[in-house]
């Protein structure tokens, strides 16, 4: 009666980047048992090797469009591009972690396995083609992060950061599930291509969309808004970022956001582009997304000015950057701009990934072993004691501001361009203005490093691996800044047509 599926039915061929990573993480847990306690770095090397294999497999899968697991798993350039970001983030975060864990006495093999698990979650968010899969991946992304945030035992700050993240994360998940339930109630399916069809059929028939669907979409937006930390769902960010171990913060600030935006783009742009209240031009969610983007840009950039701790500053900066990506999402709500805006968001996320991880790498280089020393004052005099490190940090700050010749500029340029073309001129102007505001606090760090006298050598944690990560992210920020096609060409094949069913 029931057909028991065989392995061939699952069409696994192109899923290996993710499947292999999950498998690798599980095997790493086993391998870790045989690695002696004083040589846990070996677990890290293994984890890096697993990431590298997954990265290469993913490159091979890049232009493929296919679906697997009975249509629940999409393979397309969109997800492949996000995989590149997720895997690089994990790779750099592990480079940053090895010596950091060693000197703060929390070297544990499980750390690396958990990083791999959460990375698999991020990648699955991009591949998900069903609300159930989005939900389960969201949790696979979140739960290991709760633990990683609390990893610095017995530091209360770290445990509380994990607890706070867990409680708010669970709250957000509840919103997501209730929203998904309403979408299911309105369309009768959890499969994204099916939802797309039902909504498109309803739109073609000329009827207004069901309120149930609108409210459901709104609740999903709230749930994912918590994950990507946009205003007004950002309250947890600074506390959690400050309390978590710095390499974990670095991962969180990129990985969790990339995963959240992957799901937002999949649900809003791929599945619900024609969810409209009668005006044909724009999706019903566009206005809400625009408002969120505007509030996020203003609050993130303005509050960042007052911060005295580099981790809190980068937390608010990451909120602000989520605002720029929301701008792209708002533009994607305009009929015909979905693909261009999605590409802009992808390029922006890649540029943000390199720059932000680089800034965190420098922050780790100057942090002390007990987790203190992340005050902005630590940067004073860095230009004299470590001119190279300070110079690179200055470059990262310029890229976060969006100055030409940096990757950050390319990302912002594309986003402003698509926002203006989609007719959201006020939002684009706000984006430019808040970028100018952001220059104030980013350049404040440069001023501290070069123009003020300091004493001593603050860069205690600048070990070989951390420096390696700094150079890697520097290359990733500089090269696309000079040769933009390095990033934009990769996104050229991205399309927002729903795949399979």
């Amino acid at each position: 009666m029931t057909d028991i599926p065989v392995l061939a039915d699952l069409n696994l061929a192109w899923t290996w980047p993710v499947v292999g990573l999950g498998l690798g993480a599980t095997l790493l847990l086993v391998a870790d048992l045989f690695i002696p306690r004083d040589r846990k770095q070996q677990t890290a090397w293994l984890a890096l090797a697993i990431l590298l294999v997954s990265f290469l497999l993913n490159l091979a899968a890049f232009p493929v469009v296919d679906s697997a697991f009975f249509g629940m798993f999409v393979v397309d350039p969109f997800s492949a591009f996000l995989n590149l970001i997720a895997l690089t983030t994990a790779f750099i975060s592990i480079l940053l972690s090895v010596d950091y864990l060693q000197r703060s006495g929390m070297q544990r093999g499980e750390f690396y396995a958990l990083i791999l698990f959460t990375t698999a979650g991020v990648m699955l968010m991009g591949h998900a083609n069903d609300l159930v899969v989005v939900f389960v991946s969201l949790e696979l992304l979140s739960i290991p992060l709760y633990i990683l945030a609390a990893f610095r035992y017995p530091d209360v700050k770290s445990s509380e950061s994990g607890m706070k993240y867990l409680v708010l994360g669970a709250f957000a998940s509840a919103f997501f599930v209730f929203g998904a339930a309403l979408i299911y109630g309105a369309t009768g399916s959890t499969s994204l291509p099916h939802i797309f069809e039902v909504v498109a059929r309803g739109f073609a028939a000329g009827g207004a969309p069901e309120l149930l669907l609108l409210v459901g979409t709104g609740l999903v937006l709230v749930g994912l808004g918590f994950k990507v930390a946009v205003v007004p769902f950002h309250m947890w960010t600074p506390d959690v970022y400050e309390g978590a171990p710095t390499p974990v913060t670095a991962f969180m600030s990129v990985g969790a956001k990339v995963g959240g935006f992957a799901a937002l783009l999949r649900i809003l742009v791929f599945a619900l582009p024609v969810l409209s209240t009668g005006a044909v031009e724009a999706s019903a969610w566009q206005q809400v997304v625009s408002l969120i983007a505007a509030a996020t840009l203003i609050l993130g950039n303005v509050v960042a000015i007052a911060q005295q701790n580099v981790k809190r500053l980068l937390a608010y900066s990451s909120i602000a950057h989520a605002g720029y990506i929301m701008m792209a999402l708002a533009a994607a709500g305009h009929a015909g701009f979905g693909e261009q805006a999605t590409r802009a968001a992808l390029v922006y996320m890649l540029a943000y990934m390199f720059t932000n991880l680089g800034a965190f790498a420098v922050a780790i280089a100057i942090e002390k072993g007990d987790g203190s020393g992340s005050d902005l004052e630590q940067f004073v005099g860095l230009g004299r004691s470590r001119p190279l490190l300070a110079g690179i940090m200055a470059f990262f700050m310029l890229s976060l501001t969006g100055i030409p010749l940096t990757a950050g500029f390319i990302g912002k340029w594309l986003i402003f361009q698509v926002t203006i073309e989609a007719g959201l001129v006020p939002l684009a102007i706000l984006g430019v203005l808040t970028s100018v505001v952001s220059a104030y606090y980013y350049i404040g760090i440069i001023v501290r490093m070069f123009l003020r006298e300091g004493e001593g050598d603050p860069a205690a944690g600048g070990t070989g691996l951390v420096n390696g990560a700094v150079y890697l992210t520097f290359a990733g920020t500089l090269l696309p800044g000079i040769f933009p096609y390095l990033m934009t060409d990769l996104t050229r094949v991205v399309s927002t047509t729903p795949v399979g069913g």
Partner: protein
Amino acid sequence: MLQTEAYVMLSMVLFVLGAMGVMLRRNAILVFMSVELMLNAANLALVAFARQWGNSDGHLFVFFVITVAAAEVAVGLALIVAIFRTRRNINIDELNQLQG
């Protein structure tokens, strides 16, 4: 036969009740219980809609929600124990090592 609307309305009330608990209470464990109420409200809506549409997607979603809730609670309990070992209270507001 009771209609879907009755169940969905009830689940909505339960959801808002849970949200109220999360936002108004300070104790981490109570906040956690309120989140469970919200998840149950979502489950109820899912099952009601599953009956409405006559397919099993909703039931399977509930299945996964329950699984995930169990995982979350396990991690939450571990964190609560870890915090309590170093500090003797678990009020959300008083997690003030992190000013907020």
